């Protein structure tokens, strides 16, 4: 996966995201998720790294499943009835489908980000037509995400060392406990962004409109095969679903 052209991986991640909006068949979603996990395994990135990253998506997916019954109570049979919180089987299955979509999208973008060096990611985006400065902004934002997650951890440790127990109280209290973390995180993010922009200027960024590249991208035969396959299969499946031949 590391050797595949970044443009192919970017197109793949985007196509997967678009496909997920059409997917609701649990079997199809599960099979696709399983295939993607095999792909993740083949990247060789490592279980610990994957676990740390995908855990966020897992939590988000679980929240969706838990919160879904407040908004969707259609269908029968009724599995759980707790005043305003009613869980029906069809609604539960729909929430599971959404959860699986979240995990699919997260896994797909994980493969892209962890198998593509930042420079290649920017180059791929630019080759696909994105302006260089936008491509750079996106790749820097993605690369700084783990750093900000680390910063959040350090802030939590600092708060704990001053006697603030973030895990005290019920779910609403715990959510409120995270608000003080947002303040320093946003301040650090803004300060980092300002310093980074100054560093870029010092390194001559924007000095010339015509930017040269040390390494350029070249698509090989395998890249073309993968790209054609994605570009054919995904629209074909979406077309089948839209025309009603199959329910994805």
């Amino acid at each position, binding site marked *: 996966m590391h050797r595949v052209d970044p443009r192919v991986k970017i197109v793949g991640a985007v196509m997967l995201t678009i496909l997920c909006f059409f997917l609701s068949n649990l079997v199809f979603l599960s099979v696709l998720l399983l295939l993607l996990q095999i792909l993740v395994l083949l990247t060789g990135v490592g279980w610990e790294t994957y676990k740390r990253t995908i855990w966020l998506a897992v939590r988000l997916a679980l929240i969706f499943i838990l919160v879904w019954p407040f908004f969707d109570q259609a269908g029968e049979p009724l599995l759980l009835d707790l005043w305003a919180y009613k869980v029906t089987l069809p609604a539960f299955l729909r929430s599971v489908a959404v959860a699986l979509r979240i995990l699919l999208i997260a896994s797909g973008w994980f493969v892209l980000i962890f198998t593509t060096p930042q420079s290649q990611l920017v180059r791929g985006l630019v080759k696909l037509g994105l302006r260089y400065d936008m491509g750079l902004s996106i790749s820097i934002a993605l690369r700084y995400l783990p750093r900000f997650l680390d910063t959040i951890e350090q802030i939590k440790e*600092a*708060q*704990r*060392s*001053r006697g*603030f127990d973030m895990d005290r109280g019920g779910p609403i209290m715990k959510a409120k406990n995270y608000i*003080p973390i947002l303040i*320093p995180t946003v301040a650090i993010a803004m300060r980092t962004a300002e310093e980074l922009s100054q560093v870029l200027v010092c390194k001559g960024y924007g000095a010339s409109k015509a930017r040269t590249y040390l390494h350029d991208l070249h698509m090989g035969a395998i890249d073309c095969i993968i790209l054609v396959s994605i570009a054919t299969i995904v629209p074909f499946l979406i077309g089948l679903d839209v025309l009603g031949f199959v329910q994805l």
Partner: protein
Amino acid sequence: MTAPLVSVSGLTHTYEDGTLALEGISLEISRGERIGLIGENGSGKTTLCKHLCGLLIPSSGEVLIEGRRIKDMSIPEIARKVGLLFQNPDNQLFCSTVREEVLFGLRNIGLNEREAEARCRRYVRMLGLQEYVDRSPLMLSLGVRRLVTIASVLAMEQDIVLLDEPTAWLDRAQAALAMEAIRDFSASGRTVVIVSHNMKLIAELTERSIVLSHGRKIADGRTRDILGDNALLESAGLSPTPISEFASQLGIAGKERVITQGDFIGALLSIRDGEFSRR
């Protein structure tokens, strides 16, 4: 014999990525000690500090605070006993004003509002922060932010505080304020552990030093003996204090090893008075 304030036995810590950060660390810290914790980057100093604060779970071994296992203590209980000043001030500023920042920890440990305000005023004055008290700490200069974090930790008046690079980013005047505050804090019978690469700071503020190297404790003794042992310092990837190096190059020695400016002057006077000759 009084029980130690902190007791560490066989502490080992391996991070999730497999890095062995600490290996078999055992030590005791008594009340009122001023200890320097030194070692090169990656030697395990910050990891050890986090264990003493209960922020990490050991892979093996244990940490006792006043004879109680730290893992049996709650967060507020630990926070009343042990304080930690993190290296990066930006990771520990959460409140809208400097006053609120200093009061944050005091309220968490259950201090009544009157006592909390009194302590806040005292430490704000001690660190020269009076003019910043109603301003947002995040908008202040780096040095002042650092002083705010020092004030917010010292104000909690815990039995033991761990200060990671307390004078980093401080100019000369600010560093003098910080060192004076640390001395006053320690003079009240509390234990201070200073983590620093600044050997001059360690020499001036601590009586005992612990040296870590590659996660192991390789020395634990008088600061004077440790900072005067060039071979030990070299093996730990550390430099002697500038004055110690200068004295060594001049072949100047006194009754004790020269590690501070005061020692150097004392040694010179001793040579002048004929007590000792140059080596």
